[in-house]
């Protein structure tokens, strides 16, 4: 396949004796939006954790840009272009909204801790007071997710829906090629949901491939180019959203053994 950016083969993760993800193989292409769905406990977040380097796989491989990256640490994968958000937000709560972005804008491929610390002694490296480029980029990202009015607010004081957007902006600030979104719409009201769909579409419009875990069908059906369904850690279906939605195995996974497909 042309422009494939990520491929997993037989990806498996055990927690003790529990198989959270079992033998999952799939591929993502550049610039596509893939929805990852499945009932609670299906292993969706575990799969995203594996792809983002939160922990190494028990077996199986992950290739990113043709390179085997299974077992790479999260910070390393981020530097290679994989960014993510979290189901339960993990923003930096004692930092301001702007500083949350500032932390992500630092070019961490070039600036390791020593270089950053020593540079700060003679130059205001990545200080938003002094670095006009960094500030402009931070402002642009805040504007993109509609948080400009809150930029000097402490992140812990943000309404819930905005913390989700801040996390997205923070992930974008690292200039990803692949963005993994773990339930970006959970807990949002209908209006916020529409805003969120708009944001995700615009990110994709800039050429970023997106893998999105989502329970809200309105979101997943309207933006996904393709769906992957997990059930008990196994991939049970994959394909165009409408086809997957009618797939008897998928309906069975969601509704139980005796359910019939309604047409």
């Amino acid at each position, binding site marked *: 396949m042309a422009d494939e950016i990520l491929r997993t083969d037989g990806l498996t993760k055990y927690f003790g004796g529990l198989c959270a993800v079992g033998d999952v193989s799939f591929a993502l292409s550049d610039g596509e939006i893939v929805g990852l769905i499945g009932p609670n406990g299906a292993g969706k977040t575990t799969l995203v954790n594996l792809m983002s380097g939160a922990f190494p796989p028990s077996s199986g491989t992950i290739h990113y840009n043709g390179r085997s990256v299974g077992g790479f640490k999260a910070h390393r994968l981020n530097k290679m272009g994989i960014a993510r958000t979290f189901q339960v937000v993990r923003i930096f709560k004692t930092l301001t909204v702007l500083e949350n972005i500032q932390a992500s804008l630092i070019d961490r491929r070039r600036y390791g801790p020593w270089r950053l610390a020593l540079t700060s002694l003679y130059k205001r490296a990545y200080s938003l007071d002094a670095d006009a480029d960094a500030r402009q980029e931070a402002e642009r990202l805040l504007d993109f997710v509609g948080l400009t009015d809150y930029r000097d607010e*402490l992140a812990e004081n943000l309404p819930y829906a905005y913390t989700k957007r801040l996390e997205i902006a923070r992930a974008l600030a690292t200039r990803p090629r692949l963005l993994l979104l773990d339930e970006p719409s959970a807990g949002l009201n209908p209006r916020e949901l529409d805003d969120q769909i708009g944001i995700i579409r615009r990110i994709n419009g800039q050429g970023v491939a997106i893998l999105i875990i989502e329970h809200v069908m309105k979101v997943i059906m309207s933006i996904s180019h393709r769906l992957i369904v997990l059930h008990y850690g196994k991939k049970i279906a994959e394909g165009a959203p409408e086809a997957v939605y009618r797939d008897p195995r998928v309906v069975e996974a969601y509704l139980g053994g005796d359910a019939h497909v309604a047409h």
Partner: protein
Amino acid sequence: MTPRTTRRLLTAAGLAAFFTLPLVVTDRYFLHILVMTGIFAILTSSWNLLTGYAGQLNLGHAAFYGIGAYTSAILATRLGINPWAGLLAGGLLAAAAGFLLGIPSLRLSGPYLAITTIGFAEILRLVAMNWVDLTRGSLGLYGIPPLTPIPITSNVSIEFTSERNFLYVLLIVLLLTVWAIRRMIRSGFGVTLKALRDDEVGAESIGVDTARFKLTVFTISAFFAGVAGALFAHYQRLISPDTLSLGETFAILTMTMLGGLGTLTGPILGAVILTFFSEWLRFVEDMVKLDVRMVIYGLLLIVTIRFMREGVVGLLVKLPWWPKTLGKGGSDGR
């Protein structure tokens, strides 16, 4: 006047007062208290960088202080190394120890890390107590030379045996320490440390190599504490394993918490308040014939944590006349 000018004027006035103080004060006892305040201010500022900003609970800071003190003292007394070089050597060896203590922090956090750091300092204290050949054990190392005089002309030189001249050296080192920490905190480095403190997994997800950042900040923090220890050795000219004690770390912790953890001025303010306060307590202790200092430190800590989480600085920023530019997005440029 713009807030920026106000701030610059305040800084200039503060610095002027800072450097004229040793000239105005003539009482040697008072000068001694100022020296101890300065040493503690370096210790609290460096501890604050590691624990306040980077969130790594280190209860073994006295170990770095003690390593700096013993390194410079042993180099000077045994090998005749120039004390000025000893300051650097003390800082560097403490930094190496900081790097080592940083390694467990890669796997441990919170109370587990705290206990490990206490253990680290205790082991070093016991080494200093028992390696009598090197350290003279609990007798302490004495006969440590003062900082070598700096020659001005062939027959005039600056001596550092007087409290006043030593105080000037100390003030310069303190100023450099605070300046360096301030620069780091206000840059991308400081923002990264705070991000790491707030959410380690979140920090990893934006490309922060949290392991290397922790090792770096442990090393930097320990360096400053080591220099403070070496300065103390050449000032007091007698050091004992007490410099490595948990009580020493506890004093640093109480000062920083009282002044304001995770703020730039808080640790210095705390060092000033508690050094003077504990000298006053000596008189009280003489009167009541009881060692009440640790009891009072403990009470102060409880009151601070319960009623003023952000310390004295947290209270000051609430005052209407306090320059608000110091508190952008949180007290004191947090």
